[in-house]
């Protein structure tokens, strides 16, 4: 029977069944799955799909969300998990609990609820494993196993064999402040919502009493119980608003919390006074409702923020878990947390560098793309500095540790971005201003009306004041903005855009310039062969690619990935990697070289490698160049359409990159971008953004990569693709899930629509109040009509906001 396939029809033939990457041409790997032969892209995916099928977990493929291409693809390098069984490692990464061990593992490569099901079911089937729980949101696995009956390495190895990239977290990095924040926020939300419901019930009684008559004693009683219920709502649920308002006053930067606090505080105080002095009216219902809607808005916003993974995990997941420490010439594997300044460590080709240090011996090239945005590998020799988080590509080096943990360059960049975020001017929205000040104005007007009627017709003063208060209940105004933002936020998350900052939608709607980062944002950061020029008539393109693929099997260089093929490769003997130059080896008795022109065979005729941004790699045999490959970083899907749509909306497009001139010029020309800058440091990018802001531009920065984190925070608003460095996610206002850039257009359109709805809502609320207030103040609106008018106006505002949840 047909699987409830997540692969759109027609794509089955060319995307990998497991990881959804396109199946390379010439690859004919297949997996037998429920009677059908499904294509897969690589032996790794084939092994994972077969493992999942054979262990009875086939339903995983029916239940999962459509994966982003490549997310579930197993890592190519194999990790030696057995080192994690040593006492040192267990002490560093697990907590001992009676006869059981517990560990928290960050699971890279998981993307939906079905992944957590697959992981939990597979792990609990291992003998000795008691519990395994995965959160699909934080990607954390909490696993508990009995000492001696299961091994840590077995658990990690199982995760790896399912195609995930496990990353044990040390216990201290798992104490999560956001969990405490969420618990408190939930409690406050519950107090506010239950309080609101109760007070509303009493309010119905009080309003009915005003209309039909009520015992003085019963009225006092209902007011008193309303007071009892409202008190915790004001002093517990609304406490963050008072605290934030006070901080604003102390810092002389009053925010929107101040008018909110004054409104809540004064309405509460006046109601309490009225309760104990038998005053004209109480408005405990308005107070609790106002607090509830504000708390709900804050809660939804907090949830969205927490979806981006917290900073400590982001930092540690960029660093390897273990380092090879050298004592004399004896190497031992230790957890990175045990490295100290002055230690010597050994770093093999392909390994990430765990701490900042200077090279003592060995030549290599390192990939610093994460730190500097520079895509080309950097040469390093003894005496040079290497930074934590960069990847050692092709040489064995010995490094003396200078700085570890948060003192490293990586840690500093992360602190810098936090500061940039902190100093960003608080953006006070117009909507909040209007809503909050109108609340205060209404209370003042009600007082004036009460005073006026008290002196002209004291017997009607009470009813008229009541009508004024009810008819102009701030609910519609208070709801206008949060309801629209909440609806927009939840719709955006369905459209795979996570909003992490409450101001993002409004800031986005005002953006006039979009600045893009290059590597990993416009491009995917995955090199690909775009053209092959064969210079020797006796060879075909396919031959050249096969030979190149075979030679590159020895290299960990990022460009090597471009050559990978899933066909039977010729056997290579005496394979050798020449650092920074290329690879060589013998195939069928001939000596082949692949790499830079000079390395392969001197001046390759007719190819000027400076004229193109793409990297040229040459293939030569016995000193003669036979072919050259043009390798480019692949563009993200739909980049051209996305840029066209953005231009169509009247946005200026600019490109800022840390990459070299030719690469940036080439890409800008290809995409029709006229404004660009190259070889930008993070400071330079920030300067460009600030200059644009001084010219009155509102900048939307789209970027990933750690070096962009301060830049993202400095722009008016920022969007990061989720597959970039995790740290960038934490400073971006909006996180874009998935591979395509198209959600960017949706986000900009959605923000405009949201702001239109907010303005409509505010306009409606103001018009309604402007009409109803004079009528009520003149004594023309009885309280029951006022109650209907108030409910209807709130309902209209909410329904209008809900239109956003159908936005496409």
């Amino acid at each position: 029977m047909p699987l409830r396939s997540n692969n759109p029809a027609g794509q089955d033939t060319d995307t990998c069944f497991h990881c959804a990457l396109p199946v390379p041409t010439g690859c004919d790997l297949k997996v037998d799955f429920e009677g059908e032969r499904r294509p897969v892209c690589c032996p790794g995916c084939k092994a994972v799909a077969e493992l999942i099928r054979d262990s009875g977990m086939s339903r995983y493929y029916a239940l999962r969300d459509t994966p982003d291409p490549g997310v579930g693809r197993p890592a190519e390098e194999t990790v030696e998990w057995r080192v994690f069984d040593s006492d040192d490692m267990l002490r560093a990464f697990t907590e001992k609990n009676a006869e059981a061990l517990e560990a928290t593992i960050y699971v890279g490569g998981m993307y939906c609820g079905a992944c957590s099901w697959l992981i939990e079911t597979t792990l609990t089937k291992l003998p000795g494993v008691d519990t395994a729980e995965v959160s699909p949101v934080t990607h954390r696995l909490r696993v508990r196993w009995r000492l001696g009956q299961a091994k840590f390495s077995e658990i990690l190895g199982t995760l790896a064999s399912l195609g995930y990239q496990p990353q044990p977290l040390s216990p201290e990095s798992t104490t999560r402040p956001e969990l405490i924040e969420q618990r408190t926020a939930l409690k406050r939300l519950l107090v506010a919502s239950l309080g609101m419901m109760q007070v509303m019930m009493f309010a119905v009684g009080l309003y009915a009493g005003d209309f039909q008559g009520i015992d003085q004693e019963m009225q006092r009683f209902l007011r008193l119980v309303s007071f009892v219920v409202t008190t915790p709502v004001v002093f517990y649920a609304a406490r963050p608003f008072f605290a934030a308002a006070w901080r604003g006053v102390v810092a002389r930067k009053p925010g929107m919390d101040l008018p909110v606090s004054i409104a809540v505080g004064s309405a509460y105080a006046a109601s309490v006074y009225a309760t104990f002095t038998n005053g004209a009216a109480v408005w405990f219902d308005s107070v609790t409702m106002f607090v509830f809607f504000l708390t709900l808005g804050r809660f939804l916003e907090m949830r969205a923020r927490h979806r981006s993974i917290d900073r400590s995990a982001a930092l540690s997941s960029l660093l390897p878990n273990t380092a090879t420490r050298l004592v004399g010439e004896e190497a031992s594997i230790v957890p990175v947390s045990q490295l100290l300044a002055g230690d010597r460590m050994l770093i093999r080709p392909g390994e990430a560098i765990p701490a900042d240090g200077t090279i003592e011996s060995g030549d290599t090239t390192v990939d610093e793309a994460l730190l500097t945005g520079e895509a080309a590998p950097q040469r390093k020799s003894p005496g040079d500095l290497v930074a934590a988080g960069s990847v050692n590509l092709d040489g064995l080096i010995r490094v003396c540790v200078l700085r570890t943990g948060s003192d490293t360059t990586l840690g500093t960049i992360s602190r810098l971005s936090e500061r940039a975020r902190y100093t960003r001017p608080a953006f006070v929205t117009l909507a909040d201003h209007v809503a909050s000040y109108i609340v205060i104005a209404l209370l003042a007007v009600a007082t004036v009306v009460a005073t006026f009627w008290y002196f002209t017709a004291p017997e009607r003063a009470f009813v008229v004041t009541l009508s004024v208060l009810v008819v102009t209940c701030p609910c519609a105004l208070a709801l206008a903005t949060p309801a629209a933002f909440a609806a927009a936020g939840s719709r955006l998350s369905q459209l795979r855009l996570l909003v992490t900052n409450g101001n993002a939608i409004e800031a986005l709607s005002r953006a006039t310039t979009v600045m893009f980062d290059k590597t990993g944002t416009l491009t995917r950061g995955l090199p690909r062969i775009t053209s092959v020029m064969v210079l020797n008539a006796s060879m075909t393109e396919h031959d050249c690619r096969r030979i190149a693929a075979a030679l590159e099997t020895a290299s960990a260089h990022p460009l090597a990935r471009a050559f990978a093929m899933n066909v039977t490769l010729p056997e290579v003997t005496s394979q050798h990697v020449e650092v920074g130059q290329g690879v060589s080896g013998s195939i069928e008795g001939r000596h082949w070289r692949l790499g830079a022109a000079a390395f392969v065979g001197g001046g390759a005729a007719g190819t000027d490698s400076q004229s193109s941004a793409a990297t040229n790699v040459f293939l030569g045999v016995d000193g003669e160049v036979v072919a050259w490959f043009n390798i480019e970083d692949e563009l993200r899907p739909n980049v051209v359409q996305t840029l066209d749509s953005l231009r169509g909306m009247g946005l200026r497009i600019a490109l800022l990159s840390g990459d070299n001139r030719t690469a940036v010029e080439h890409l800008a020309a290809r995409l029709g971008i006229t404004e660009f800058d190259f070889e930008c440091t993070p400071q330079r990018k920030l300067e460009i953004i600030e200059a644009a802001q001084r010219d009155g531009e509102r900048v939307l920065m789209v970027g990933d990569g750690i070096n962009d984190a301060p830049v993202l925070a400095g722009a008016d608003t920022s969007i990061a693709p989720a597959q970039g460095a995790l740290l960038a996610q934490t400073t971006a206002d909006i996180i874009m899930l998935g591979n395509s850039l198209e959600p960017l257009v949706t986000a900009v359109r959605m923000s405009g629509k949201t702001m239109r709805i907010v303005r409509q809502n505010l306009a409606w609320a103001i018009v309604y109040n402007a009409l109803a207030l004079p009528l009520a103040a003149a004594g023309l609106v009885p309280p029951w009509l006022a109650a209907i008018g108030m409910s209807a106006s709130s309902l209209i505002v909410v329904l209008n906001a809900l239109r956003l949840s159908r936005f496409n």
Partner: protein
Amino acid sequence: MSILYVLIPLALLLLGVAVWAFFWAVGSGQFDDLDTPPVRIIMDDDKKPDDGDPL
């Protein structure tokens, strides 16, 4: 109507119990993960590897 003087305090008492129970549940971690439980309910083990596709 004087029954209200008994029923309303009773309702408030129940409200207090409900709030206490919820605070306890939050404190014991039952609400820490608000995202997994809704998907977990629709997933269970395939009993046998080859018992056909139940979907």
